[in-house]
């Protein structure tokens, strides 16, 4: 018990005696953690963007203006019965016209042309969303059934494929660069830690020599150095976590436009997974630091 306390105080004395080195080590560790977190954050955002885009994929079937109401409701019912269909939305002709007007609000020519015709030139639309992106091919076929074919004016299928491919590409690049950054910072972190411990041992070489002479166990000599590494890790973790928290609060509003103003959910993601992510990061860092400092002290304790 008293020994534990002595090791504890000794670790803080070590820390204070080479404070600048400790601060530098903390900084590098912090950078390593931040790069891991930024990488994670980018991943989350990318995934969310892809999900949002996937959600936008649909088939819009435009019917001829003279299509009877009955056919429309029947078509809607028919689509609803299909297993592959997630939602079916019937937009009556009037509403289609209203939407069209709204879209061309500023285009006087179009509006003028519209008002010249006294009846609604546009037909009703049915918007179909599939449960899975793979189902769209089937749905396109299904709609082509002879029953409705004659009434269908056009059908559009916007799969946002180009956009999604682009995002996936960028995502891959970011992930690669991020992983590289993480590896570099982790490596530098461990090297700095190793070096910090070397210097700490050098500073304490007289003390260590005397400790050995008067019969200190090697555990007693090693433990404060290892513990100092633990304090450094904890500081780095706390600082990285707070900095990252601030960065998230700042970034979320900035990201909103990407999601048509919806909540990007990135803060929520990190809050939900705080224990897991924090635990893993802290655990991995502590494990590495303890192993590295144990080895470093061992190497320099050999005479």
């Amino acid at each position, binding site marked *: 018990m*008293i*020994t534990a306390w*002595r090791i504890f105080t000794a670790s803080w004395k070590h820390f204070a005696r080479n404070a600048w080195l400790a601060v530098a080590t903390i900084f590098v560790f912090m950078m390593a953690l931040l790069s891991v977190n930024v990488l994670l954050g980018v991943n989350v955002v990318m995934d969310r963007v892809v999900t949002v885009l996937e959600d936008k994929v649909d088939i819009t079937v435009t019917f001829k203006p003279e299509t009877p109401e009955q056919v429309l409701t029947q078509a809607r019912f028919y689509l609803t019965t299909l297993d592959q269909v997630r939602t079916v939305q019937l937009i009556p002709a009037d509403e289609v016209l209203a939407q069209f007007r709204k879209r061309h609000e500023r285009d006087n020519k179009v509006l003028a042309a519209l008002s010249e015709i006294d009846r609604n030139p546009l037909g009703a639309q049915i918007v179909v969303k599939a449960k899975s992106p793979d189902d769209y091919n089937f749905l396109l076929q299904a709609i082509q059934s002879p029953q409705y074919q004659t009434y269908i004016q056009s059908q559009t299928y916007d799969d946002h494929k180009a956009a999604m491919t682009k995002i996936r590409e960028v995502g891959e690049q970011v992930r690669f660069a991020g992983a590289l950054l993480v590896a570099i910072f982790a490596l530098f972190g461990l090297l700095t830690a190793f070096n910090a411990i070397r210097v700490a041992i050098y500073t304490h070489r*007289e*003390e260590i*020599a*005397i*400790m*050995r*002479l*008067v*019969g*200190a*166990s*090697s555990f*007693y000599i090693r433990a404060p150095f290892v513990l100092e590494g633990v304090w450094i890790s904890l500081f780095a973790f706390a600082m990285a976590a707070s900095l990252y928290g601030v960065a998230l609060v700042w970034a979320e509003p900035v990201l909103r436009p990407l999601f048509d103003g919806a909540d990007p959910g990135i803060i929520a993601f990190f809050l939900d997974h705080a224990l897991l992510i924090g635990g893993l990061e802290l655990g991995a860092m502590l494990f590495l630091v303890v192993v590295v400092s144990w080895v470093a002290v061992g190497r320099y304790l050999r*005479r």
Partner: protein
Amino acid sequence: MIHLEHVSKHYPPNIVGLHDVSLKVEPGEFVSIVGQSGAGKTTLAKMLIADERPSQGRIILGGWDITNIRGWEIPQLRRQIGVIFQDYKLLPNKTVFENVSFALEVAGASRSRIREIVPQVLKIVSLDSKAERFPRQMSGGEQQRVVIARALVHRPKMILADEPTGNLDTLNTQDIMDLLLKINAFGTTVVLVTHNREIVNALRRRVITLKDGRIVSDQAHGKYVLTG
């Protein structure tokens, strides 16, 4: 207490530290080990605290064969031997009290034990009034007495002193010698390594003379033998 059987120590490539040294020291003895520079005195001392391993032979201390002692057993050994080596001075940023209590702390002694023992050993070396001083505020002789106090905290059965009077004047040297004799009078075995002819001659105790790593004389009431 100390039992060496045909102990040799060779350093690479072919330097002889010690060669076929056998000797026995009984508990409570006061033995001086003398010899010219490079004779192997420090090598012998280092082997007694397992700081060096013999190349050949066996070393037995108080019935414990330390020839092939394990790393984790060494602290146990060192707590039974009070060591006074020139390379291991006091820590400059600790007070006298702290320098002495340091040796107890590393062995896991409780605070109350430290408060009990440290003043005792400081009293033995007559420095109980200077416990709060720092080494730089003390004379060389006083500093060396603190080192002796530090060596005494584990109540060792044996004191091993390598040149304890190395850079002290005659008066301080006499103080240190008186102290070692006093410790020996309590029943502690003392092994003294030295160059100093006068002090050995004045002691009239057992003297072992080394030359080129070999024992060339071992006299019960010896004098410092000068061999060519």
